[in-house]
């Protein structure tokens, strides 16, 4: 839609809510009923109407009753298709929305859970400039990708659900405006220094012999003789050592909001987000101290999500 038209639409939405049929946000589940489904003819429908009119006048002019009967039949079928278009949406329920996680600037995946008592076909959903078509038998899950720009709570946009089933002559439509917000995580900075850690973390870096046999390698001076792989070395001109996998000992990162006084708010959040991501990727334990929240050390996706969400909702 073009600029002035869009402006007009925004003005109309604000001043004439009843006329523009916009819906205020409402809680799930949303069931479509006849009070909120609207039907308009499509451009093709209007053209087809003109064609029917031409056929009607022709049949009347030539007093051709057979053609008149079939024109009436086609016209009545077009009218019936309007009811079918209505029935395609009527009774459709948006039961729930599951949102995934996304960093700001990346698309967020939404899963819309639709249900309907009757099978439906050719239902379409407009969301932020893209249209998806789906059929429904009992239930259907529709995946949408929602563009994000900034961290924090993102209210779901108004979704238009519509259908021009079965003949494309009429378009039945309704607004879905779920009262639900999704959380967008902050975007980590692309590069920066690692967190500074207290000195007592050093001791943990002492190497420890792992338990599991990982590979064979050449003998180096100072290797323990009990780790020589004798059987393998017999078939080789050098001694081979059994190399054991030693999980790298990692220090727990204590990430602290107050330790980054030099940066401004968003830069701090971006840095903390990067550290959280690195810590999670390296398998470290990490804790997060924020002005209003203390998250004790932990690791794993749930812990990461908790920390990122805490960062996302910072004022």
């Amino acid at each position: 839609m073009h600029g002035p038209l869009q402006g007009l639409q925004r003005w109309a939405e604000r001043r004439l809510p009843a006329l523009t049929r916009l819906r205020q946000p409402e809680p799930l589940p949303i069931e479509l009923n006849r009070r909120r489904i609207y039907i308009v003819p499509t451009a093709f429908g209007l053209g087809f109407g003109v064609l029917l009119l031409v056929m009607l006048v022709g049949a009347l002019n030539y007093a051709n009753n057979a053609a008149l009967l079939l024109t009436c039949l086609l016209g009545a079928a077009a009218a019936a298709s309007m009811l079918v278009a209505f029935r395609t949406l009527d009774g459709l329920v948006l039961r729930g929305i599951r949102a995934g996680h996304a960093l700001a600037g990346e698309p967020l995946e939404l899963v819309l859970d639709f249900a309907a008592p009757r099978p439906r076909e050719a239902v379409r959903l407009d969301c932020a400039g893209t249209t998806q078509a789906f059929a429904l038998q009992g239930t259907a899950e529709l995946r949408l990708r929602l563009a994000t720009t900034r961290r924090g709570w993102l209210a779901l946009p108004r979704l238009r659900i519509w259908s021009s089933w079965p003949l494309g002559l009429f378009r039945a439509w309704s607004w879905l405006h779920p009262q639900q917000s999704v959380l967008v995580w902050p975007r980590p900075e692309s590069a920066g220094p690692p967190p500074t850690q207290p000195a007592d973390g050093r001791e943990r870096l002492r190497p420890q012999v792992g338990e599991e046999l990982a590979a064979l390698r050449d003998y180096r001076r100072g290797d323990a003789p009990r780790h020589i792989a004798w059987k393998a070395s017999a078939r080789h001109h050098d001694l081979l050592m059994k190399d054991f996998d030693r999980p790298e000992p990692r220090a727990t990162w204590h990430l602290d909001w107050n330790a980054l006084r030099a940066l401004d708010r968003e830069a701090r959040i971006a840095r903390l987000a990067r550290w959280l991501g690195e810590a999670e990727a390296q398998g470290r334990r990490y804790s997060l101290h924020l002005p209003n929240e203390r998250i004790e050390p932990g690791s794993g996706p749930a812990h990461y999500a908790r920390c990122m969400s805490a960062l996302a909702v910072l004022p």
Partner: protein
Amino acid sequence: MTHPAATPLDARSFDLIALGLAAVLALHAPHLPWWLSAVLAPILGLRWWQRRHRQARTPAWLKLPLLAALLLAIVSWYGNLFGQEPGAALAVGLLVLKLLETETVRDARVGMGFACFTLMAALLFDQSLVATGTVALGLLPPLAALRALEPGRRMPPALWRELLPGLGLLAAALPLAVLAFLLLPRLNSPLWGAPNAGEQRSGLSDRMTPAGFTQLLIDDSPALRVSFDGPPPPPGQRYFRAYVMGHYDGTSWTYRDAANQPPAALEVAQTLRYHVSLEPTRQRVLPTLDVPLAAPADASLRRDREVIADKPVDSLREYTLDSATRYRLEPQLGRRRARWLQLPAGYNPRTLALGQSWRQRHGGDDAAIVQAALALFHDGGFRYTLAPAPLGRDAMDDFLFDTHEGFCEHYASAFTVLMRAAGIPARVVTGYQGGYWNALGRYLLVRNADAHAWSEVWLAGRGWVRVDPTAVVRPQRISQGAAAAVPGQLPWYQSGWLQSLRNRWDIVNRWWNLGVNGFDALRQRGLLKPFGIRDTDPATLALLLAIACVLAMAAGLAWVWRRREPEDAARAALRRLERKLARLGVARQAGEGPRDYLQRAAHALPAQHDELIELMHRYLELRYAQPEPTTASLRALQRAVRDFPVVRVVK
């Protein structure tokens, strides 16, 4: 993002579109020139193959020349682009060429809308029940194609299954369509020119040459249907007069229309009233049984009691007439006698000589001369055939003395020339003779193949007397109809059991003609009269139509707004049990739970006490014991409820 209408078509949609166009082409093929069908069909097939198997587009350098060739061919064949036949040919051609550039949803929609229009145009050529039904079926592929254009639908695996929903849609639309058909105000006069004015069509003509009927006699489309008040006349009396031809120029007989002359005097002994439903002929003549007493509305009686309509019959025409079946027509010939003795000079000398010799032999006995001529046809070795040998300049001489073969036109013509040569006023009459009496519909079906020519001679004291020389040569022609006269000479479908089947089937066409094709403003008024609506001006009809549409839409809305909650099966079983118990006198009270209710019922009906307690346990277990009831326990409950006896046990 691409605009939805610019989405490329999928394979199934394209198949359906090609199928729709093939249906259009097939429905129009009977009246398209054969070469056009023969060119368009391969184009359609090749384009389908090209897009389906090569995923290729048609190059622009091919499309434009094809379009130009189509226009050129139609103009050179028909002479212009306007009118019914060239218009239909153009529409079909354009539609098929449209497939060449059909790539997107928008193209497909335009094409399918236009296909619906072109299908309707096929009805301008044939409005029979079969044609209408076929065109209605032809709507199914376009409807299916429009459905296939909608994304996000479940695609049936088989192509033919795509067509069924369209049939359902049309069936659902039928009530509203019939209402609209009945109530739509009809036009009193056409807004623009009636179709095919001046277009040639095989039928009776106001000119008769020997062997001119050949095309007509193998055209077995219905010409008229006649019902009689009272019993139908016997087969030998079923002569329908159309043209009375008095002028002979040596090759052909012609009818000369002269308005403003009073009809010839008629003395009537017996009349018969009948109703004719005449198929469109594009001519003005209305065939009548024997001699009509008066003309119907919008027609007039000519001098020789032919009925000529004011306008050509372009659509089904119905009229009621009284005709004399025993009569004396024009008892006094007066000064017009010379007109009926006219013969061209210098033609048929041997025939004239034969006529004059009869006059000399029989003197003043005209009836004897007629008998002599009939005896000649009967005993002279004449043969009835639809494929006679060609005749030369002196056609009647050749026929009477050389070839000895021909059909009704030859006999009527030769007989009339002989009579005139003998000095007896005579003329040729063309029309229809015979027909098939449909006992079920109680009407006479007269086909174009029943076209016939005979003679009338004027005998003193008897007026004009019908003489049918063909009846002498081939009596079966008169008593059993055209098909019986020439075994083996008609197309296979015009003879034997198939023909009799088609004759019986024709009653459906008659009903269709009466109910649909003949439904005009007059019938509309008749239909509304019982409802107390006497005034059927367009405004009233439009109002009624609007009311009907509102009612139909209300019915449709009631259908779409109804919500049927899927009822819980256990609850349904309990309801059934409640109904049974209510018949036994234990009705469930408001606010009574199933447990209390069934216990009360068990006490009230000691004979079924154990069963009811058992049922109660089953229900409660099903309802509350498990989170999701098992099918087996549900079945058990349903069976127990079904088997619960309602009959009160008498002890």
